[in-house]
């Protein structure tokens, strides 16, 4: 479902070239739970952004669900992100001072889903992450773990092909981290494809497959 071939990414900063990724090749099949591991500066975040169509590679080809992402324009990319990818960020990235319900409905608003089914779908996923009793709370009234669960619910509402999680437990107390990981594992059991970035081995241990990155290269797959 995901196929990368010879993906490279080079940043230019004040004339200094930094190579973040060199010739990355791998495939991820439907239903996989993959963890991408590596120390900071290994290029794992850059890889994640390219997988999420948030950034474009300097060279190489990226196929998502049979589509060559490199050929798409900004609006088509926005549509891909909206329909096929669910994001869970390290820093949650919820809209501040906005209710949980509205946060979760936002991707559906951009997709133009009818208001009735928006409410129905949002409630379903808020229930899935166990926050039904806080549906009208504001995002900033929640703990880190709760905010991340809202973000997971938000990533699911468009029924994406793949869920991309960037250090999903990085800003969360360790006791809550376990329950977040349980949600991911359950989602994977239901057949969802999950790609997760982490630098913590015990978090990566939840995944079925681990890709190790170092200096922009895959060292172990």
């Amino acid at each position: 479902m995901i196929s990368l071939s010879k993906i490279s990414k080079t940043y230019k900063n004040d004339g200094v070239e930094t190579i973040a990724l060199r010739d990355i090749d791998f495939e991820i099949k439907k239903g996989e739970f993959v963890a991408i591991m590596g120390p900071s500066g290994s290029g794992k975040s850059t890889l994640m952004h390219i997988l999420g169509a948030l950034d474009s590679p300097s060279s190489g080809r990226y196929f998502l669900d049979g589509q060559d992402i490199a050929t798409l324009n900004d609006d088509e990319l926005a549509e891909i992100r909206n329909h096929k990818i669910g994001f869970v960020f390290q820093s949650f990235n919820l809209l501040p001072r906005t209710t949980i319900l509205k946060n979760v409905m936002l991707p559906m608003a951009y997709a133009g889903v009818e208001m009735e089914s928006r409410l129905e779908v949002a409630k379903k996923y808020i229930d899935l992450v166990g926050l039904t009793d806080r549906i009208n709370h504001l995002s900033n009234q929640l703990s880190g773990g709760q905010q991340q669960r809202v973000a997971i619910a938000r990533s699911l509402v468009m029924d994406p092909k793949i869920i991309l999680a960037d250090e999903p437990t990085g800003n969360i107390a360790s006791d809550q981290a376990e329950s977040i990981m349980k949600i991911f594992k359950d989602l994977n059991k239901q057949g969802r494809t999950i790609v997760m970035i982490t630098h913590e081995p015990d978090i990566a241990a939840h995944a079925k497959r681990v890709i190790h990155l170092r200096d922009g290269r895959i060292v172990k797959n």
Partner: protein
Amino acid sequence: MKFLEIVTESFGTLGLNKMRTGLAALGIIIGIGSVIALISLGTGSQKSIENQIQSLGANLLTIQPGGQRNGNVRTAAGSNTTLTLEDAKAISTSSKITTVKSVSPELSRRSQIIAGKNNTNTQVLGVYPKYSEVRKISLSSGVFITENDISSIAKVAVLGPQVVTDLFGEGADPLGQSIRIGSQSFKVVGVTTSKGGSGFNNQDDIIYVPLSTAQKQLYGVDYLSSISLEANSADVMVDAQNEVGYLLLERHKLSDPTKADFMIMSQSDILNTASQVTGTFTTLLGGIAAISLLVGGIGIMNIMLVTVTERTREIGLRQALGAKKKTIITQFLVESVILTFFGGILGMMFGILTSYILSSLMKIPFAISIPSIFLAIGVSGAIGIVFGWYPARRAASLQPIEALRYE
């Protein structure tokens, strides 16, 4: 995303951060308000001056003798002796004059006036009864100069309130008292109501006597210093000016209008001059307003740039969740329009209120300049919208990840 939904969303977002929204709106309110207030004050003081001149009589024409010409030297206008009572009578009786309602011949001099131990130097004006009609003079007590006074060359005088104060003290009743003009004794028969004015045009510091008395008893002359005319209406001022002009040229046996030994001035001429003066004043205020518009505009620009730039991360998040560039730009544009629209309306009310309070404090008429409202709202609105739209467009053009990582 539907447009209506974007509008609802924008209202919601503006409500989220009340401080930020309030400050942005305040910039717009002050910018628009100060411009409207300043220009309205300018318009108001212009009106005030026009009203004062209008109160002298809008249909008023004044004939004065021209200056004397000796060779190439011309003396001051009004110093000639060519205007006579016969001229005034001819104007009021001639069949060629169709647009003049009343004629008031006048002789003006300055004299020393004495009453008891007090004395003052003021203008003595020899007049006909018509004067009160032409010049809109009303009396606070007694009567004005009558036809009878004219024919009997009576030694009676009507005093302006300033003269009463100077000679008899504040609020005194001078009716029946006698005053001396030069060496001759006059009986006070009336006092006019205060009209205001100052300097040369102080209509309160004046003494009216019968024209015949002034000419024959006081000053021993047979000419006039001016003739005031009241035209039938403000529309026929030019006709009246022409009719009277040709009649006088004929009477003075002059064939060339450029050699006329008199001048006819209308109130509208004076009005025009005054309007030019106040026009300069309004331009000055307009200049100040333009500067405050500029300053206000820069304020709006700054706050818009800051508020939108501060939300670059939010823009990145919205892009990551599938918002298209157009949707994001529309959202920020709608927010700017809402801000500038409501800020503009509040600013307009603020400006109108300020100019109302200031004009009542300054005792000038309250006037709203409609073009200034459109100008202020137009310029500030345009600035607000452009500088809300520009950073949003810039942020929406970034790669989503760059916007998300923006510090």
